């Protein structure tokens, strides 16, 4: 089953490599990973999507917790949460197809952010399903290149994931 983990880490050199290395050597798979500073510049937040059974997930969380630079781990899948991912898609697009593509873009509330005579770059944000749907449609025209940010996610409502004194 897929889970989204929000991992608060100290913003120090080597932290990303510690986390990625841990996943690699223990045989855990990362589906996607996004990382950036939080409102506290000393703390970064990693959003890690993993595909794991219960037992593996438990090990993953426990092993992550052992990393000294990891402050807090929350499994967002266990609670109501929203997740989004941004994708940039470069589509093969002779001028003759622009109108059709424009319609798709509007339907998905995406944006065309670069235009050349034979290609367009489309920016689209959404959840997994939406991204899959637009990718499928655009593949009809020929996708030249595609880049994804990895998922980011927040809990719904006013509840937040804060770094407390104790992480476990």
């Amino acid at each position: 089953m897929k889970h989204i983990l929000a991992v608060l880490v100290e913003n120090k050199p080597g932290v990303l490599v510690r986390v990625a290395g841990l996943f690699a050597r223990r045989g855990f798979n990362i589906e996607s990973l996004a990382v950036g500073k939080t409102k506290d510049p000393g703390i970064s937040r990693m959003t890690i999507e993993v595909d794991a059974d219960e037992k593996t997930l438990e090990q993953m969380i426990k092993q992550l917790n052992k990393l000294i630079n990891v402050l807090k781990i929350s499994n967002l899948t266990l609670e109501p949460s929203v997740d989004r991912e941004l994708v940039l898609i470069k589509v093969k697009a002779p001028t003759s197809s622009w109108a059709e593509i424009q319609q798709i873009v509007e339907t998905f509330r995406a944006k065309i952010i670069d235009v050349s005579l034979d290609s367009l770059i489309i920016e689209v944000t959404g959840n997994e399903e939406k991204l899959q749907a637009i990718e499928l449609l655009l593949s009809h025209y020929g996708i030249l290149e595609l880049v994804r940010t990895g998922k980011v996610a927040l809990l719904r409502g006013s509840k937040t994931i804060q770094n407390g004194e104790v992480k476990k």
Partner: protein
Amino acid sequence: MKLSGAQMVIEALKREGVEAVFGYPGGKVLDLFDHLYNSELAYYMSRHEQGAIHAADGYARVTGKPGVIFTTSGPGATNLVTGIANAYMDSVPLVVFTGQVATSLIGTDSFQEADIFGITLPITKHNYLVTSVEELPRIIREAFHLASTGRPGPVLIDLPTDVQSAVSDFSYPTEVRIPGYNPTVIGHPGQINRAAKAIARAKKPVLYAGGGVIISGASELLRQLAEKAEIPVATTLMGIGSFPGDHSLSLGMLGMHGTYWANMAVTEADLIIAVGARFDDRVTGKLSSFAREAKIIHIDIDPAEIGKNVTADIPIVGDVKNILSELLKKAAEKKHAKWLARIAAWRKDCPLHYDMKADGHIPPQYVIEAIYEATGGEAIIATEVGQHQMWAVQYYLYKRPRTLITSGGLGTMGYGLPAAIGAQIAAPQETVFCIAGDGSIQMNIQELATAVAYNLPVKIAIINNGYLGMVRQWQEIFYQKRYAAVCLEKSPDFVKLAEAFGALGLRAEKTAEVVPAISKALSVPGPVVIDFCVRPEENVYPMVPPNRGIDEMIRGDIR
């Protein structure tokens, strides 16, 4: 007070109560060694960096305090890798200082540059690359704290030359604040109650004690609990010494080369109380058959060990000493006469055994027994890795914690001699034996020079069978005696080798020569090498074949 980075290290070591530093100098630690030269810290120079780190590891296992190592950058640092991994697997506290090229040169493939920070990420509890001298006091304080608390382990500090020479204000922090590090020490009272109830209900309980009991200093509590509830105790390799080997409730070691009765007891038990142990594959054999009748209580300070290999019915995270002391209060007094009688029958059915006379060769097991007799079971024994290691735990009964110094998790050949050196430095008054094989002794034989240089009276017993015996045993049993690359017939003459190093060399070729050789070695004040020419193709039994349950042992011929 203004100090250079190198001075800060020396000053911090004093404040941490460090008494001995192990290491090997080089171009990127000249400042560090220069200040060490002026200090009152005892300094032990090895002949190879690997020797230095294993010695520090042996020192740490005997004292319980972090071992401290200084080496240079590049090859000096990479030569530590095996020692770091070894300490990490066995939860040994080390603080490792490596020199590094100047910060301005990092990343340029500069002379003797190696990314030791990156290399040791997966084999340290934590590591640091220091980029400014201002953060050095805090980092050293953190390193000692991390190395020695919670589940101990090695911590590495990589020190660029410009950080060693830079000068800054020095104030050593008294407190440590590491927000991401907060080991659970106190066991959950509800879980401890459940454990006490399970112990009260159990008819066939077994305590399964690991290295955590020794690390936590909980051996006395373990003994009290075992006696109060009359529970037999099986130990892991790392747990040997946590419970007196000559105690009537001691089952000896369990697992691949465990005793028949320990493995049978665990298999039939209705309750396993795992204390500071991690259900390693060498202990469990085939997981699905392990302790298949038993409810499992798992006590460990590392939450990640709980549920990793075996699902615990009653998990208790915390410090073993703390938990055992609570559990002891709550555990009911019990008697298990029937259960103990069953175990005694197994013991009688398949005792540890060897043939004294078969072929005129010295039986290797006899050498271990003779060392046991000669030392009254009171020596510190450091082993290498292989058959001799297994015999050294089967035929020597350890009465006290921290008297068996052995590479458990990583299984590092070359560990024993330098570890014995570290152990002797830690305990100058004690008799220290290194029990080695003719293969593994050659992996760090250069450390004999260290023993001679510091006049450390380590007694090195080479159980010389002319083979890499453990590998040969596997080839005999599982590869139709195809002895690929295990014959050591061209080994050096160990007696002459000892003499060349300035140690005493002795040899025993007949069984009758074993005891006199040991007596002679013990009567000599300096280091001694004894070459015991033993039966070449003796096997270690019992043996659990790979992927089998631990009750499916090859028992060996009982004559």
